């Protein structure tokens, strides 16, 4: 049995089977999981905001969808993954408070859109996602088979 390695908010990590990765309590943030089914090199990023170019204070590249996904891909390739085999799954981007209006509130949706766009730009295929709605998600990515397990309060855990 491998270890379950924790990824914090505005953080990203790469591991290899048998180790797996998790991030706890995604709200409006997005968890981007990527894996290479052959080398079983796996990565997980927990991004908070869609676009580093819109923010003055952008030194933490793991905080943003654009820079975080790029860094995760680079780190995975360094760890032996092959770019053309890498698949991605994403989850999160919830609207925790249904307030309508304001920027903050739509940031979940904008995070999801930015993540999809960056994956597309990098040529990584997004094969599954569970985004939006109004609940928090804990995610676990299993490097052995690429299963992406999603846990939410009051729901049976499900895989995508």
């Amino acid at each position, binding site marked *: 049995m491998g270890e379950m390695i924790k990824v*914090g*908010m*505005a*953080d990203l990590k790469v591991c290899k089977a048998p180790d797996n990765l998790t991030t*706890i*309590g*995604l*709200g*409006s*943030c997005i968890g981007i999981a990527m894996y290479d089914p052959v080398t079983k090199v796996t990565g997980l990023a927990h991004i*908070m*905001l869609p676009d580093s170019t819109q*923010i*003055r*204070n952008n030194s*933490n590249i793991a*905080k943003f969808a654009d820079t975080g996904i790029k860094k995760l891909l680079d780190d995975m390739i360094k760890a032996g993954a092959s770019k053309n085999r890498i698949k991605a799954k994403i989850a999160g981007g*919830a609207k*925790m*408070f*249904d*307030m309508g209006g*304001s*920027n*903050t509130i739509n*940031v979940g949706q904008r995070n999801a859109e930015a993540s999809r766009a960056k994956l597309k730009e990098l040529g990584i295929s997004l094969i599954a996602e569970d985004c939006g709605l*109004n*609940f*928090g*998600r*804990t995610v676990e990515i299993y490097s052995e088979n690429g299963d992406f397990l999603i846990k939410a*309060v009051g729901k049976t855990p499900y895989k995508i």
Partner: protein
Amino acid sequence: MSKMSLDEINQMFPDVLKEIGNIGAGNATTAIANMLNLRMDMSVPNVELLNVEQIGTAIGAEDSVIVGIMLGVETDIEGSMMFLMDLPSAHRLVNRLMMREADYNEEFNEMDLSAIKEIGNIIAGAYLSALSGMTNLTITPTVPYVAIDMAAAILSVPAIQFGMVGDKALLIKTEIGDDLGINGYYILMPEGDSYEKILRALGLPI
């Protein structure tokens, strides 16, 4: 007059921001204690300046379930504020309001949720009226919204809000009522130049 980032403001005027937090939270806590007819025994609020990445764990484990009440703030300043409680605290508070047994902890029903919103209204109103009184700014809260979910998920909302403008967030912790043991947390999230407006209204050289 150069434009300051929220982080710079937080660093330059920590005592002022803490004092605003203290007075606001004190007022809000008194309001709840009055509503519940509790003997007032409030601890001095504890004000912390956190890195946004740490907010998710500021109230306890990331996956512990908490109750968050969020309101918009408008008129002279813009933004939002949050009042957060751990789940046992929320149950104790609602049980007291609904005159139920103290250890009742069934899932909240519609009535309970409206009670929680009302608590949010009272707390926000008291907090903001303190701020308003200090600054002479007109500050009004909007309708409250409630979320009950994992701490990290709820706290991602202020984390993102602060993350847009800087790396730090101000969290105020308070304890209410010695026989009830309610732990509450406030987060004020000013948008745009609202922080500067508050500080300028207080006569600080911004």
